[in-house]
Structures are given as structure tokens and as C-alpha cells.
């Protein structure tokens, strides 16, 4: 590991209140949970920050529960638990599917939904799912609580709207409209790969589509949805998608591949739909 662990400081709060107070007193404290993204930075010697707030012991932030029509997933729920949770599998099977494909089993045992959101990678596999589900991010600070739609919470390339002193407490997911839920991740290999393209969709009377790894942020494809909702052809939908995304060439793939595969995924989801 290229980061000296002895220089680092870890604050371990006993309660959510204590955590929020610590954060209010020192906004430079970096909240961490499963630390799976953190270790990638630390291993490369590119760790941001020296002082960390360990949220992992705050089990009240790990609940998965239903409040009427609202599915609430605590920020500390791991992908392993999300993949197995009956509530998630019944209400939002595409999130359970995404959770099963994020990293390997060891990662899934530590990585949390809140962490995946906070890291705000354009390739984050949970984000297109949450966008299709029109999820809200519940934010808490010593000042109180607020909610933001997931699409506005992710404010730019690896940027979020998290304010000083705030943590992600939970994700709230309203009941989805009628339709088939579809998810597909395309990586360099069959498992444990970073997405080249990842797409989530609701195939029904009110189509919804979101896609990752094809722009600086994961995107909800509103114009493509409008074409589909208006009964447009798949060719027209492919064209609309092309106009909405801005893929690039990088270490993992090419812009041309990402565009065509995103179009093919769209077509495979909505063909005959």
C-alpha cells in the first residue's frame, strides 16, 4: 500500500448524533463505510484526506424496510444484503440484479449503496437503477434532514450535492409504475469488471431508461424515453439515445463501442415491448 496508514486518523462515533456532531465540528472529516473505494485510492497512494469518520458501526443506517409504498434502504446496506433482501427482490428486482454484479463477493460484503452513491463514479452500477426508480437521497446533518432526487444529487463528474456536515442516511424508492425491469452490465469479462456500459430500464406504458459509463455522470435518457412513449420506432429511439450520451475512448473501451452497445441494449430491452 502506497499510503502510510500510521498517518491516518479514524473517528468512530457511537451514534448517528455523535457522527453528525463530529462532522459539524470538522467538515474535513471524510465519512467512510465499507471503504472499498477508499482502499483503491490508498493502495495507489492517492488517498484524499487524512481524517476519516467511520459510519460502519451505525447499524441504524443499515435497515432495509418498507414504509407504505416507499422502499427505504439505509445507506449502510451492503450489496450482499440488498441482493438477498426479499423486499428489494419483490419491489425492485433490478437493484437486486445490479447488486449481484458489483465487484466480487468480498466486495459485496463490504460495499454499501450509500458509498456507491457518494463515490459518484460515472460507471457506478447502482446509479442507473436508482435513476430509473426515481429514488430520493435522504441527507442528514446536525442541521436536520433534506431529500434530493438522485439525478440532482449527482452534480458532475465524481461530484455530489452533499453539503458540509452532511451524510447520506438512506435511499427512498417509490413504487415503480407497471412494466418489466431490465438491467444489464457490460464489462471486460463475465464478473468483477468495471462497466463499459451499464443500462437500467423500465419497459412499460411509461418507459424509463438510464445509462452509465457513457457520459461524465450516469444519465436518465428523457428524450429517448419520450420517443419510446410516443410509439416511435427503435431506430428513432437509437438516434435519440445517440444525441443524449457523450461516450469517450478510455482505458476500458472506445466511444464507438459504448455508443453502439448502448443502442443495442436499448433495442434488446424494448424490442417487442
Amino acid at each position, binding site marked *: 500500500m502506497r499510503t502510510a496508514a500510521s498517518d491516518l486518523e479514524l473517528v468512530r462515533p457511537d451514534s448517528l448524533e455523535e457522527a453528525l456532531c463530529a462532522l459539524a465540528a470538522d467538515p474535513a472529516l471524510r465519512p467512510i463505510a465499507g471503504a472499498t473505494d477508499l482502499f483503491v485510492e490508498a493502495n495507489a497512494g492517492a488517498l484524499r484526506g487524512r481524517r476519516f469518520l467511520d459510519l460502519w458501526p451505525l447499524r441504524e443506517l443499515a435497515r432495509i424496510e418498507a414504509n407504505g409504498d416507499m422502499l427505504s434502504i439505509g445507506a449502510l446496506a451492503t450489496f450482499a444484503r440488498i441482493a438477498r433482501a426479499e423486499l428489494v427482490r419483490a419491489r425492485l428486482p433490478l437493484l437486486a440484479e445490479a447488486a449481484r454484479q458489483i465487484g466480487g463477493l468480498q466486495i459485496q460484503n463490504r460495499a454499501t449503496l450509500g458509498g456507491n452513491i457518494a463515490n459518484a463514479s460515472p460507471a457506478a452500477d447502482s446509479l442507473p437503477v436508482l435513476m430509473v426508480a426515481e429514488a430520493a437521497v435522504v441527507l442528514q446533518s446536525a442541521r436536520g434532514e433534506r431529500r434530493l432526487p438522485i439525478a440532482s444529487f449527482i452534480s458532475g463528474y465524481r461530484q455530489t450535492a452533499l453539503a458540509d456536515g452532511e451524510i447520506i442516511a438512506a435511499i427512498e424508492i417509490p413504487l415503480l409504475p407497471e412494466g418489466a425491469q431490465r438491467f*444489464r452490465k457490460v464489462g471486460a469479462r463475465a464478473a468483477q469488471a468495471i462497466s463499459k456500459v451499464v443500462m437500467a430500464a423500465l419497459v412499460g406504458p411509461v418507459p424509463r431508461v438510464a445509462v452509465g459509463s457513457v457520459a461524465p455522470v450516469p444519465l436518465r435518457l428523457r428524450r429517448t424515453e419520450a420517443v419510446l412513449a410516443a410509439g416511435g420506432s427503435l431506430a428513432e429511439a437509437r438516434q435519440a439515445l445517440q444525441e443524449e450520451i457523450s461516450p469517450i475512448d478510455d482505458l476500458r473501451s472506445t466511444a464507438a463501442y459504448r455508443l453502439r452497445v448502448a443502442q443495442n441494449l436499448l433495442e434488446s430491452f424494448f424490442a417487442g415491448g
Partner: protein
Amino acid sequence: MYSVGHSEERKDGVAKVRGTARYVDDMTFPGMLHARTIRSTIACGEVLAVRHALEEQGFTVVTARDIPGENVIALIADDQPCLADGVVRHAEEPLLIVAHPQRAALWQARVDVEYHARAPLLDAERSSTIFKEVQIDKGDPGRGFAAADVVVEGEYRTSWQEQLYIEPNGVIAVPENGGVTIHGSLQCPYYVHAALCRVLGLAGGKVRVVQAVTGGGFGGKEEYPSMIAAHAALAALKSGRPVKLVYDRMEDMAATTKRHPAVVRHRTGVTWDGRITAMDIDVLMDAGAYTTLSPVVISRGALHATGPYRCDHVHVRGRAVMTNTPPNGAFRGFGAPQTEFAAEAHMDRIAERLAIDPLTLRERNAWRPGDTTATGQTLGADCSALDVLCEAALRTDFQGKWRRNRGSGRGIGLSLFFHGAGFTGAGEERLASRAALELTAFGARIHVSSTELGQGAHTVLPQIVAETLRVPYEYIEIAPVDTAGVPDSGPTVASRTSMIVGGILQRCAEEMRDRLGSLSPEEYLELHGPLVITKEYERPPGSVWDEEHYRGDAYGTYTFGCNVVELEVDPVTYEARPRRLTAVLDFGKALNPALAKGQIEGGSVQGLGYALLEEVVHKEGRMANNQLANYAIPTTLDVPPLDVVILETPYRHGPFGAKGLVEAPIDGPAPAVINALRNAGYDLRSLPATPEKIMEARCGST
């Protein structure tokens, strides 16, 4: 049989499974320092100034000026410095070694290097610096082409591949007895020994090299440990303390050797009935910035470039050229995977042109016993190219599936391959390997420098001795690999250990058995005292090699194999998904069938990675994806069911008929995949066949 042919338990197995095996990074010595290598960030240029305040911060700093001997890593051409002295020829070139008592301090060390950067040469096809050129000539290609009905041309390209042993490179250097002792993760202790004597200016007796438990090599620990051991030794001698130098994965991937990229061009004359009349083959390999082992890699590549096919008129030209990239080096297969990929992909193009199926074309041309290779070597009774081909085709219903699949998105592809066992040409004679066998109260102890890398050498060698002495396998021990205690049995490379070193040990054991007569080991020791039998390699009778003209017996013999890959192309993502891989290998005798099967499975999977996934991305001469997250090797979910078949056509000069095994399995999967893609409707001629390239191949054809 006492032991040979049985799947004996690995001698190193229990410690590895229980986690008690001690790798370099598990070892510590009193007062030990930790070291790190400061490397160039440019690919080509001069170092104008190096500024740091590390000594004041408690670091030991080693530069080229601290080298007591010659600033060279001795190998073939002696052109690679141990530490760059003013001139940088590739990115990641070692400049300084810094060492500190606290490991965590290493990455805090700040060194400013001022360069005068020059434009690097990164394209091998534009290089005019040739490290080694080889030519193979047989018959008269002009006549051969004149006799052809058709001439088929093709160009095939391969890229780098990373060995990706589980344990990265690492050593500990301990100052001892006025010299230095190295404990290292390595394949070839005597290579390290020779290199250290040169760079440290020490006599042989002052340098000792001990192999630590080694977590895989695949060729990647053949030459590089000489470099890293020299660095640790210099820091140890300067500080007077033991020094540990262990790379992390990122450094290991960025700085150490890879498989050579290659461009192979074929021009082949054939008759309409599918007989090859002439071959003209040009092989270009990118060696990187220094010679290292490239002369031998290009030689093996050229010698395997024809594929295992009859042809009276052949011209092969091979060149390994310089570029400003980290030197490429040994990797399982050693030049053959590149040229056999080209040969086998080209065979399918020839079949296509002649409108015959790939199996029939190969059946007509595959070597039979008594045929001659491009160097004029007459193949012995163990030449089983046709047997492995027929077995693989029959098991898979190759012809039927190949006809039904065409253009369906499903594909089946075949490759027939061969691999020369042991060192090339007169290499084994020059090595003059020695092995020793010591009588113990129960059985015998083996003394060799052959290393256990996970491949099973320290299990199979005792099996050969047990069988010869007619005692149980458990009665045979193997001494630690330590240059202070074992003879030089040559490097553990080139699929040579079982066949060559095993053969020497078999002769040692035969003599021991004769000396014992009717006595038990205990009785013998009591009556006659200690017994150690040492023997040296002996060339098989009648074998000749002309190095100047590349004529004669290029290898003792050849192992043969045939792969059939069945795959599907995902129409949405263009991913090629292997559905089944059949591997038929004939390597004379499976001394330990379970280990042999493991080697075939492992080599096949590594070959599938080479074929489909593994891609080194370079930016300005530096590896940009030097992380496991971005350099994808196959996971279990990427591996289809493997059907492994072992045939045993004995080689009369190998122990119990055995030939080399562990490299051959990686020669075949890549061409079989490319040929299966062709059958599925996708025309690719370069590796790896990523979905991006498959998409291009499809969109080009529609």
C-alpha cells in the same frame, strides 16, 4: 509402477494450503531495511539532475556510482544497466534505490528528476536497431512457389501479455561473510548468482542465492529477479543491513517484462488439392529497450513459425528490434504463441481460399514420423501431430459443427500446435546441467537448482527417482534450492525440467540402484559411508545442430497438441463467449496425471485470456492499465468447460517417455478462438479479440 503415472500428493501442497509456506514478504531479518526503486517517468532522454534530501531523512540512497562491479545485468548482450547512469531508454527504468527502516516511509520519499526528454521510438515497425536476426532456409522457395496453384498471404498481429503470477517480484538481500545472500521469488537461482557476481564485483563464493517459496513465475521470474536482486544487494552492501525489496502489483505490472508483441507475415504456396509447396514467413518482435532474452525468444518464435506442417521449400526471417519501452521477456511459450497464432490463423485462411475444410487441410500437411522440419530435423516415432488432430476432431464432431455453424453467430475453431522441449539448438549442451542424488537412510535426497513455481517440479522429480529406485515416493526428499548447496541444473524454463533434469536424475538413480545391489540404504551407509551421485546432461546420440545456418535438431523433440474452441458471439455486446475448449496433448508420458491436467487447464485458460481479454494499454511508452481492475484476466465465469485429453506416445530419450509439457498448452487457444470467430462470421487477425474489435469486424462486413 511405484510412483510414475500416479497422481502423488504435492510435496509443497500442505504448507501452501495451510498458509504456513513462507514467501519473501513473510520473511524478516534483524535490522532489515525496506527498499523502493525510483524510476524514470519519461521513455527516452537524459537525466540532467537528481535532487532530494533523502539521506537527511534517514534513507540509504544507491545510485549507479555505488556499483562496485560493472553497471550491467549480465544475460546475453550485457547492454542493460543495473541503474540508469544519465541516459534513459524506457519508462520505468530504475534510477535510484532508496531504503529505510520504515516501510511506510518509502512512498513518502520525494525525488525530483530533471530530464532532457527526447522523442521515444515506440513503433517496432519503424525501428532500425535489430538485437537479433535469424533466418531459416530449406529447399528453394522460388521453386516451391512456382509449383503452387495459389499463393495465400496474410498478416497477423499480437500484443503484450502480462504473466500475472499471484506473488509479485520480491527479494531480500542479506550481507553475509563479506558478500551477500539473496532470498528471492525466482525461477533461476544461478542466473541471479552470475548477474550478482558481475554487478557486485564479487567472486562466486561470496554470493549465495536461495529460492524462497515462489508464488508463480510463468517466465516472469526468469530474468527480472537478477535486476531486483542486484538492487537489493547494492542497498544491503551500502547500508550493511538486510534489505527487502518487494514490488506491489502496480509497479510489477508497469516495470517488469511482458510477452513480446509481434507482427507475422505469411506467404504460402499451395496446390488446389491442399498441399503446401512453399512458405515465406517474416516475424518481427518488439524487444523493448534492451536485449535481455529476446535473441532466444525470436529464435524459438521463428523455429515454430511454420506450424507442424510438411513443406520442402521454406524461408523464415525473424527479427527482434529495439523500442523505447520496458524490455519484454520470458513468458510461457517464449515466442511460439505469437508465431503459432499466425501459422494457425493463416491455415484457416488457406483452407478458405481452397474451399476445403480446416481439418482436411491440416490432415494433408501435418508432420508424420520421418518428415523433416524447416531446419531439416527428422521427426521421430513420437511425432503425433496427426493423432492429436484426429482425436480432437473426433471428440468434438469438428467437421459437422464447422459446416453447420458458418455465419450463425456460433463458431468452432481448431488449432494444431507443437512445442520444442528444452533449450533451443545446442543450448542444453552449453548449459551442461548437473543434478545430484544423495543416499539417505530410507531413500534419497535430490539436489538440483530446479525450482518449484507451482508447476509441480518438486513433486515430479522425486517421482522419477522413486520409480527408478523402486521405493515409495514418500522416501524421496528434495533439498532446498540454494546455490551454496545444489549443483547448477540449469534454469527452470523451456519445459525442460521433467525431461532434461528428470533424465539426469533418472541416470543418477539407476547408478544408485546398481551400487546398492541387494543392500538396503541403511545397510549401504553403514558399510560404505555416504553416497552422492552427480551426473551431467548428455546429448541424445546422433543429435546435431549448426547454429550459424540454423540447420539440424533445433530441439530434442516436440510436444504436440490440438485445441478445439466452440464459442458464441453475443449479438448485443459483441463479446465472444467460449462454450467449450477441448485440449488434446501428447507429451510422451503423464508422470503425474493430476498435475499434468492442471498444467493443461491453466495454460488453456491463460491462452483464452491472451485470445480474448488481456490487453496492455500503453501511453507514451508506459503501461496505463497497470491495475488488476483494468487489465482483465479470466475469472472462473469466463472459463468454459474444459475437456482435457492426454495421449502418451513415448519419447525414447525422455524419463519414462516424458517430454516437456507446461508451455505447449498456451500455444493453441488463441488461434482456435480466432478461427472459431471466422467460422462464426467475424474476420479478425489480431489479438486480443476484444468485443470492440469484433464489433469493428462485423460493422466492416455489413
